[in-house]
């Protein structure tokens, strides 16, 4: 939208609708991310949180609604969606590391094949990113040889290597054993503090309270409430929000 941007809006999603079969999973969701902001999306399972993320980078095509990356609309028909995706990082719940490639090759392949970087430069970059997530020594390991937490960190490195404008995290720690969650959250927290723009679907309230600029509560396919973590935790407007936050804190701790 012209005129309004003072704060350098990186992502804007407007009125996203998505139906699967008879179920309308997203019933008109809109949100906005300014550069450097970290927002956390929470809500009961099946409320379309993951779907929202996938609609943003068009891994799932929304039925209606528009998305802008910076000033460019990315939901248009002739958009080069690959170029768009190269600018949006995505971290999956199931990691989805390329099983036939080492950690280094996993991180390197995006810059090499999509951005057409030459091999030595791409390799250097990959090593840097792996070290950034604390896995410099595991460059030659295959995914099968890594723990869950390590795999997820490699997948974050893979996203970072593309120098994205923002990163979408789809329940990054839900598939991990409890002891391994910490190492991933550490990386995510330091990314947020370094100023990365992030949109995360997660249950990790500790993370949210530490770095989130805003928490978005979704239920039934719409955003029920959103606001700064402190306000939501102490003084949420909607009863459902309060209920959910209490349940979450009970289950997952602070």
């Amino acid at each position: 939208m012209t005129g309004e941007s003072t704060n350098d809006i990186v992502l804007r999603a407007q009125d996203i609708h998505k139906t699967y079969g008879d179920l309308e999973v997203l019933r008109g969701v809109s949100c906005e991310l300014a550069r450097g902001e970290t927002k956390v999306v929470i809500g009961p399972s099946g409320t379309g949180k993951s779907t929202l993320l996938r609609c943003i980078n068009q891994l799932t095509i929304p039925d209606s609604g528009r998305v802008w990356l910076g000033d460019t609309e990315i939901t248009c028909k002739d958009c080069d969606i690959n170029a768009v995706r190269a600018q949006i990082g995505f971290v999956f719940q199931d990691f989805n590391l390329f099983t036939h490639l080492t950690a280094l090759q996993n991180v390197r392949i995006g810059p090499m094949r999509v951005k057409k970087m030459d091999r030595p430069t791409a390799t250097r970059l990959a090593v840097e990113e792996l070290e950034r997530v604390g896995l410099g020594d595991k460059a030659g390991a295959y995914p099968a040889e890594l723990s869950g937490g390590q795999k997820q960190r490699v997948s974050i490195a893979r996203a970072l290597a593309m120098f994205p404008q923002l990163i979408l995290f789809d329940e990054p720690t839900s598939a991990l054993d409890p002891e391994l969650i910490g190492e991933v959250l550490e990386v995510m927290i330091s990314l947020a503090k370094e100023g990365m723009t992030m949109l995360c679907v997660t249950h990790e309230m500790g993370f949210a309270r530490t770095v989130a600029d805003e928490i978005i509560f979704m239920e039934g396919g719409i955003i029920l409430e959103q606001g700064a973590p402190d306000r939501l935790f102490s003084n949420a407007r909607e009863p459902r929000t309060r209920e959910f936050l209490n349940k979450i804190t009970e289950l997952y701790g602070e």
Partner: protein
Amino acid sequence: MDTILHSIWPIVRDGLPNTVLLTLGLLGLGLALGFPIAFAQVYGYRPLRWACKGYEQFFRGVPALVLILLLHSGLARSFHILLPTFASGLIALGLRSSAYQSQIFRGAIQAVHPGQMIAARSIGMSKWQAIRHIVLPQAFRLSIPPWTNEYSSVLKDTSLVSAIGVVEMMKKTMLLMPTVQYREGAKWILMLLIVAALVYLLLTYAGNMGLGLLERRVRLPGFEMTGKVER
């Protein structure tokens, strides 16, 4: 017994070359056709997929022997196209192998976890890039075990081209049968045939070992070799 021992060499000398050539040729032709067909079946439009399915059904429902006769006698007498016997055998069985191999590759491609493709797209790869760099390398590894099976099948099927006169190991053995009968007596035919069988067995093992070596060389830690091939 003497004649038997003297038969081993002729079987190998006169029959083995064609058997080996045919086997390699069939596998090659089957691969050259089978892979594109598998690709079309997984990634192609519906009418294309349909056509491939029909192709597969035909070559898996008709006996190899009938295909050989169809291609050789049939073409010769109905259309006056007389192919050399080796070529007829090669084409008939090659087309057949392509139908089976397309199955193998299709199964392998589909066995690659869908998350791999999704992840590839998420970093901005185009569909083709994803297929080329992520899906196919994995599918290749998954297809080696069933392909080893196909090697064995193909080797054994080469014996069928003896029906149209190609002198490979089976035909050579059959040609030697009267000699053995004459020189040693009918009871020794059994021995001759067992010898021929053993040569095939050796070839099967040799091939299996070679392919097993290949499998080990391209193996990756933790990579699932459980390619579920569907019939």
